[in-house]
């Protein structure tokens, strides 16, 4: 392990050939760095969940979640996001086969599903606001919007990111750099899926049952 990771090991003269090999090491470092980033992101969400649980009974006389949540929409969001996680997995499989068209195609499907999820979430938020539950209604709604909204923000960033990677795939094809980027964004996407499962369970399910 100790001697495998030097991304700047001196290499013989034939730059192009060996640059490729070095990139490979460097990409491995970046992938590992991203795992550590996910740990920090995980703790951010853990803090938000903890806050939500502490404040989950603080309605301050305002509407409760059970009164306003509309589960069909939420269940639809859940299935859409889970499916998008699956399609991002298919994108990685296509990449491993060297199939650039399949890769970009599945990424497009993933982005479309993600965008649908976001649209549903935003319309859910709009309905809730019209029904009189805003971020300043009570501590419960503050923590609800912050937790779910942070997840939504992550999804939006993921969408922009995936589009950027698709453009890069179009320009450079599948090489060690773009391969790492696809792997990283797909890891991120799966992570958001796992977080959503917790959101679905802790925020929506526990509130309505």
């Amino acid at each position: 392990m100790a001697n495998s990771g030097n991304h700047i090991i001196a290499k013989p003269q034939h730059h192009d050939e060996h640059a490729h090999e070095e990139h490979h090491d460097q990409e491995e470092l970046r992938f590992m760095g991203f795992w550590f980033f996910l740990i920090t992101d995980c703790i951010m969400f853990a803090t938000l969940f903890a806050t939500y649980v502490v404040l989950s009974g603080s309605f301050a006389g305002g509407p409760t979640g059970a009164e306003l949540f509309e589960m069909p929409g939420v269940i639809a969001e859940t299935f859409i996001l889970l499916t998008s996680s699956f399609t991002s997995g298919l994108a990685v499989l296509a990449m491993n086969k060297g199939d650039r068209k399949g890769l970009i195609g599945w990424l497009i499907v993933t982005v479309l599903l993600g965008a649908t999820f976001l649209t549903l979430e935003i319309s859910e938020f709009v309905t809730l606001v019209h029904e009189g539950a805003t971020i300043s209604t009570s501590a419960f709604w503050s923590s609800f919007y912050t937790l779910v909204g942070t997840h939504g923000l992550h999804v939006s960033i993921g969408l922009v990111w995936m589009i950027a990677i698709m453009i890069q795939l179009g320009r450079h094809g599948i090489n060690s750099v773009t391969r790492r980027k696809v792997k990283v964004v797909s890891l991120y996407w799966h992570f958001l899926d796992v977080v959503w499962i917790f959101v679905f369970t802790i925020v929506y399910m526990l509130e309505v049952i």
Partner: protein
Amino acid sequence: MWDKIKDFSSEFFVTGDPLIYGADVSIVLTLVAVVTALTYFKKWTWLWKDWLTTVDHKKIGIMYVIASLLMLFRGGVDALLMRTQLAVPELDFLTPEHYNQIFTTHGVIMILFMAMPLMFGLFNLVVPLHIGARDVAFPFLNSLSFWLFFSGAMLFNMSFVIGGSPDAGWLAYPPLSELSHSPGVGQDFYIWGIQISGIGSLMTGINFIVTILKMRAPGMKLMKMPMFVWSVLSSCLTIILAFPILTITLALLFLDRYLGAHFFTLDGGGNPMMYINLIWMWGHPEVYIVVLPAFGIFSEIAATFSKKRLFGYKSMVFALMSISLMSFFTWAHHFFTMGSGANVNAFFALTTMIIAIPTGVKVFNWLFTMFRGRLSFPTPMMWMIAFIPCFVVGGMTGVLLSVAPADFQFHNSYFLIAHFHQVLIGGVAFGFFAGLYYWWPKVFGFKLNEKLGKWAFWTWNIGFYVCFMPQYVLGLMGMTRRVSTYGWDRGFYELNLTSTIGGFLMGIGFLFQVWQILHSIKFMKKDTTGDPWDGRTLEWSIPSPAPVYNFAILPRVDEADAWWEEKQRIAQGHAPKPKPKLEPIHMPKNSGIPIVMSGFFFLVGFGFVFDWLWLAIPGLIGVAASMLVHSFRYKTDYYISVEEIRRTEAAAGRTV
């Protein structure tokens, strides 16, 4: 129109205090002087190409150190203003409002904008050289971390002349820090200044973990790493687990203030106590984050100047790692008086006592390292020796504070103030000073003047005890923290005056250090050996200052203290290890994106502080755009040719 401008500027700029007007003038004069000098000497390109856009860990380290010394000056002036106000009872030197601002900025600056960047500076200067690497794992990210710290620090410091400083204490407890009680912009400066630099700290944590785990020289197993590298690893692991909590806590406070959310408010079902729990879940690990690397520095120094291998390497590693784990289970000892109940308090009292054990282990390790060693006492070693009794006493008063029932008496008294200053100055500041003195010749190629160093050392140390020992007594007499004055009848006068004298002695100590640095730049001889202390670890095997690629040939490490063992072998008449052929070195290119992106972050922060969306939104777009531009860049590296390596090494007097 004119009235509008006048109204705006009387709100925008801090007015009415001669001290502030003085500061305004000196800030403007300094800026003008810097700009004029850069233009006159035609140094703008040099500044941009060699420093502002650099991704070289050594240069980034130097910038961290310079920035943190400036912050030490600002935090120190805050401290002296407070001590002046408290020197005599019923003094009117500072108004209570001004006093509140000053103790707030003193705390924030010393911990977040002095201790943290000085620590990151030392990480940058030393870790890659220690492990035989050519840079950190993510050089671009490293530069971004620095610039984020820098713009956060500038944003925070700006509050002093624009808009008004925060005044709700260094951890900004609600409801005082809420809009209802602090309607001004000071608290928003606090949130955004810390938030922006906090993102930088998180990324530095990730960067150094990956660097240490993946970029060590061939053969350097984990248990053969220098102890400082272990301490950096434990500190960085603590960073990535603790800083996300800070990010979220500040974000929630921001939502309370900006969007009227009810996380910590008194109305709407909010819970201020939750803030106090959250902020200390970060805040307690934070003090270990800054002190662990100091332990690593002391371990290196003790071994070098005792000419002995570090005593109890494995127990030291175990102690460091167990401290970083246990630091997450002691947070509630900061508020035993909150009323969590006897069982909760008992748990946190016990964890706090337990965490003292590994620290005790380390003290014995250092003592046994020195025991029967061939000791010498240059300045780094002096700080090391001074640290041990200071930290032991500070640690023991900490154990006194951990006794929950007794803490009801000590809580928020000067006893506490004396305790944490003793561990933070005696541990962190002494440690980082020692590290700075120790690695200075490696970074700049010359040692610092010993005589002035000793003067600085003694004034600092005597000043420290004169300043803080009376505060323990004052605490026991009932003086509470954060009071801006006290009556003649309280009996606090003599001890406070003594404490103030001690504070000014430390100020003189700092001036000696500045003088020492300036004097040494002018007069000290260049060190041509690269190994002025007869060191043990890899960084001393290369020329000082280190060439841009650090190691012409990556070293092969077969044992701990590899350089020392190699020197011993050569002294015994063995031939040095054969050197492999030189090969071109692959290096990262400089980039202007980090500084530009941090500039956009600054605009975002400034925009939200004043609720100027016309500034914050372009700022956010700028941040996103800079990230995308970076993502689309594929040619971010270059090669250093063998001829150039030969030339560089020959210029440093070495053959390869």
